[in-house]
């Protein structure tokens, strides 16, 4: 972190550099499933890229349901209970 008012992520270059490292590690994480077998309990764990796909899809579903189903149902003004 720099000494002046400029901080690590004020620099767009640093943000994109971080994202680049992140995406590169994602690609690397996809490799082992193509090469190795693993010891598992359930059959589906052996499907190639089960965990990456599950993690991604689960979070997308989570966010979409929370945003488009739950929030319209439960959102109220902040003073809802005080009125």
């Amino acid at each position, binding site marked *: 972190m720099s000494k002046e008012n400029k901080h690590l992520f004020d620099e767009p270059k640093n943000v994109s550099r971080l994202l680049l490292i992140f995406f590169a590690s994602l690609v690397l994480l996809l490799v082992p499933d193509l090469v190795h077998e693993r010891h598992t309990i359930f059959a589906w764990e052996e499907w190639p890229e089960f965990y990456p796909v599950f993690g991604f899809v689960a979070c997308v579903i989570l966010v979409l349901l929370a*945003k488009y189903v739950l929030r319209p149902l439960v959102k109220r003004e902040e003073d809802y209970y005080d009125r």
Partner: protein
Amino acid sequence: MTASLLLHPALIFLAGALLLPLLRGKLQSAWLLLLPVAGFAALLKIAPGTEISARFLNLDLVLFRADRLSLLFGYIFTIISFITAIYVLHVKRSAEYLAGFLYAGAALGAVFAGDLFTFFVCWEMLTIGSILLIWLRRTKAAQGAGFRYLLVHSFGGLLLLAGILMYSREQHSLSFGEIGLSSLSTWLIFLGLGVNCAWPLLHTWLTDAYPEATIGGTVFLSAFTTKTAVYALARAFPGTELLIYIGATMTAFPIFFAVIENDLRRVLAYSLVNQVGFMVVGIGIGTHLAINGAVAHAFNDIIFKGLLFMSMGAVLHRTGKINATDLGGLYKSMPWTAGFCIVGAASISAFPFFSGFVSKSMVMEAAGLKHLSGIWLVLLFASAGVFHHAGIKIPFFAFFSHDAGLQVKEAPLNMLIAMGIAAALCIGIGSYPAPLFAILPFQDVVYQPYHYSHLLSQTQLLFFSALAFTLLLRSGIYPAEIRAINLDSDWLYRKGGRLFATTCAVIFNGLNNLAERLLVKGAVGALCRFARQGPANLASLALTPYWRLRYRKAEAEKENARLHRSFTTGAAGLGIMAAGITLYLLVFFL
């Protein structure tokens, strides 16, 4: 016996807490730090199997019973008390210190209680301690939340008490061991514990009140109430299948609320329910591996959830704000707090080499070995989800995201030290879990968290969850933080309570008005009029035919008026009464 009772850690906490308000300044701080150290040291001297019993009110009580299960909770309760004591050193409020240590002492008393009576007394003290920690925030919101907390926990306490009374009659004993679901009494105990364990629909006292407590109070609260309930369930209801489904629900539904919640301490409260869900599932599975996993996860959760609440407390302390909409960019001014928060976030998300990794997976493996495939998938979903909201959302919206332009100082030194110790424990246990595994209740099962498949699958799961967050955020789909509240099942009693009050007001005030009109104004008046004029009217009724015969109309009316006058002013009333009494006596004696 008395000598060993003095070493009861709960007694050290409770007696020590009472001295806290008498001390001032450095002495008070030193005493505050000494209490958990003394409690921990006392525990180290106690061997599993130690029991202290006593007779009280004709009851055989086991005030202290140490076995591997209770000792593990004893260790972590004293450790987190020490960390929290450091965290609140700058507060200098005797009331808060007293409440915190009474509360922690009650929790210690409950986990070492060998009979249901002692357990119940400590259980109720927990409620009192926690309400004080909520009310000491001294805001209107805290006051309301405290009252709701009191009502919900009184309800749970009464269920538990009824269950204990019935159960001890059935069993002819108060001893607190495995109970299992069978008769009504066991169901009542089960539900009573469930209220404190924040089961679905019963959980809203937690998400309602914890974010309203004092900054240090929330750290205390996050450690004890739910974990005492987890302990009690592990003691009394291991292997109860229903707990698997209750726990799985707990892991899954709060993460949806956490995604759209704006108050970051409330986000953590939802993730607290989610983590306790993992423990409840483990207890429900009931195998040795599962129970080990449940209590190991309780141990770790107390530290990393405490750490996360401490970091958000530090943010609230410095900025006065806790809503995601008001925060952002704080990594510049509070880099240490940000770093510690990320350690807590990595631990709760079960990143390799952080504490959650070695305990959460124990529960999942136990579920897998039992071939509970549906439950296992729900737990995996919850693992990805918890990373999403507690692992990324908390640090991201507080410390990064858009810069809210808040110019603040780094957290006070004592807060940083407390967070530093917790963070070191998170990494230490995650990287070298052997000491934690050595104190788990069942030593006949071996669990190896570090192997190729586990490391790879967990890293893949988390990184691709992070990818989902990144893409959703950058594409603008991620739900923007909004200044709003989200309804939860507390709506039932918050609005329902108001409806009840209004209904009661309408019904009972209506009854009151009706009674006023009919009885007070109507019947009483009529009775008075009757008493004043009744006899005269009766007499005039009787005399009218005679007057008709004897007088003319005008004279008859004059006689009538004279009669009325003499009845209201004269002695006619007395005469009638005397006649009545005489008649009565005659009838009575003849």
